[in-house]
């Protein structure tokens, strides 16, 4: 071995160690952030079960969860607070993971399904189904799914003139969202009895009156679709490098994109059918988690967890922080709107290419 090769081998070995160290550091950071968010979800979940008009101790809550009969608590915690908290977690997770899937594939934080009208599509069809066709239960989920898929297809076809991603898709999506909002308003105005709670749910999302019957379709969809999305995490990471680079790395670009988008749209539709389109959760989770977890890894799981956290916290705030109670979507809407304005200002400053 010549001196030069030896030197080189030593150099290569040390740089291998550095690569390992850097990678491990970034992975550990991402893991810590993910675990911390998951811990926060558990904590807020527990708090949601304990607080309310009546305070129940952790001991009483645990006994209810284990199936014991506790006078008072069994009804309040078991029948009211538990479904509410479970719906919050599932819907928040669905919005978070679906949002970051869209943002990753379309390479734009504005391209989240609640901004480009997909949530509004699910919501509009659900309301039409309830008001005009008197649907309920799983049928509402089904028609919401149909609405979300149709909306996504319409936006795709309208935007797919020259190339797929881009500002055009977002602008068309915002237009489609506006149309669908008016459809929701129209349908609500046709409702037989004017129910403010219901109206609020379909406009901005709410966990009020959550029932197990509402949760079941969403829970099943989560069990099927979340693994599908998580299995695509690494491929989505490669897709971020551009279609040509991804294809050269052996990713089937079109299949990956269609499967991931469809899974995200379906998950979003089931969540919307259960809780209404909780404002801006899909939009905010991904970018916030990207900042916390750092770049380079898949954001799907942490974004889902963050969505769940956001919904639980916002619901607590909406219920107890003010004199009157507000649905969760009003609180997330107040949080999300300034962020949207900020993004638009920043996009404009950088020359309009979003």
């Amino acid at each position: 071995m010549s001196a030069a090769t030896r030197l080189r081998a030593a150099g290569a070995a040390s740089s291998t160690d550095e690569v390992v160290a850097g990678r491990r550091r970034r992975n550990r950071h991402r893991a810590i952030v993910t675990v911390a968010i998951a811990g926060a979800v558990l904590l807020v979940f527990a708090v949601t079960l304990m607080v309310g008009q009546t305070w129940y101790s952790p001991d009483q809550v645990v006994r209810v969860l284990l199936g014991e009969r506790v006078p008072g608590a069994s009804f309040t915690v078991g029948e009211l607070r538990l479904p509410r908290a479970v719906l919050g977690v599932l819907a928040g997770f669905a919005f978070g993971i679906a949002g970051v899937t869209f943002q990753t594939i379309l390479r734009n934080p504005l391209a989240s399904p609640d901004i480009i009208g997909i949530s509004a599509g699910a919501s509009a069809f659900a309301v039409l189904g309830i008001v005009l066709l008197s649907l309920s239960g799983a049928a509402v989920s089904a028609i919401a799914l149909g609405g979300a898929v149709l909306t996504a297809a319409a936006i795709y076809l309208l935007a797919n003139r020259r190339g797929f991603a881009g500002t055009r898709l977002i602008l068309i999506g915002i237009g489609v969202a506006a149309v669908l909002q008016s459809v929701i308003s129209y349908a609500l105005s046709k409702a037989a009895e004017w129910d403010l709670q219901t109206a609020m749910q379909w406009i901005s999302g709410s966990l009020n009156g959550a029932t197990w019957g509402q949760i079941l379709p969403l829970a099943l969809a989560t069990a099927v679709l979340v693994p599908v999305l998580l299995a695509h995490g690494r491929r989505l990471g490669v897709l971020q490098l551009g279609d040509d680079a991804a294809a050269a790395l052996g990713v089937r670009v079109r299949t990956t994109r269609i499967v991931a988008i469809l899974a995200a749209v379906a998950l979003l539709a089931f969540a919307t059918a259960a809780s209404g389109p909780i404002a801006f959760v899909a939009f905010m989770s991904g970018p916030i988690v990207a900042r916390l977890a750092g770049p380079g890894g898949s954001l799907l799981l942490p974004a889902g967890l963050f969505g769940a956290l956001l919904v639980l916290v916002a619901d607590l705030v909406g219920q107890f922080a003010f004199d009157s109670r507000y649905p969760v979507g009003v609180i997330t809407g107040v949080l999300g709107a300034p962020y949207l304005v900020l993004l638009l200002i920043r996009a404009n400053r950088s020359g309009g290419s979003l």
Partner: protein
Amino acid sequence: MTESRRLAASAVTLGYGDRLVVDALDLDVAPGRITAIVGANGCGKSTLLKALARLIAPRAGEILLDGKALAKQPSREIARVLGLLPQSPIAPEGIAVADLVGRGRHPHQRLLARWSRHDTEAVAAALEATGIADLADRAVDELSGGQRQRVWIAMALAQETDILLLDEPTTFLDVAHQIEVLDLLTDLNRERGTTIVMVLHDLNLAARYADELVAVRDGRVHAKGAPAEVISPELVEAVFGLASLVIEDPVSGSPLVLPNGRHHVR
């Protein structure tokens, strides 16, 4: 490295919409050598490279890898043999150099398999070979254009393919960085025996760095061979529609094309 893999185009016809760009073109890529594809704008050279990389499907004919049609092989398996540096890849915001280079390992990884020791070694070797080992933890978007191009080449190296295709790897680089990139590719070819096929705009750099020059005109191979044998005023006239003088490059001994414009000519 074992016997080099063979890439060839057999009577391929390529086009976009109803426009034909490449018409029944045959090309055998010389294994273990550096091939430069040159030609005027719109002659089909980039389209040809895209087809070789299976990014566009031929209308007729086939791209063959070791004699077997690319279309009939699984994409992931092709990606272990055939790498591509596209013209404008996108670096995700804030991504670290080592992580971006690590994406080059994708075709070697299974769905649930952990990142292996060999993956890390391939990334480290790619960083080392491109001279960016000290940038491993830096964010790609903080780097200069020349450094960034090295990162992308490092990603393609980490893919550990026998054949590497590059679509204008020197665009947007200043002259020093252009030479640097081409020297790097030459090292790679000589040390690892990697077959390199690149589209180059600069005829003189192509003449200097390529073992084999492929001049494309109107979607066909107009001339092919060692630069010294192929490049002549007639070829430049036919392929670029430009009058020129061809002399011997005093630095490299390869042909040097001196264009005859309308102005500043003695």
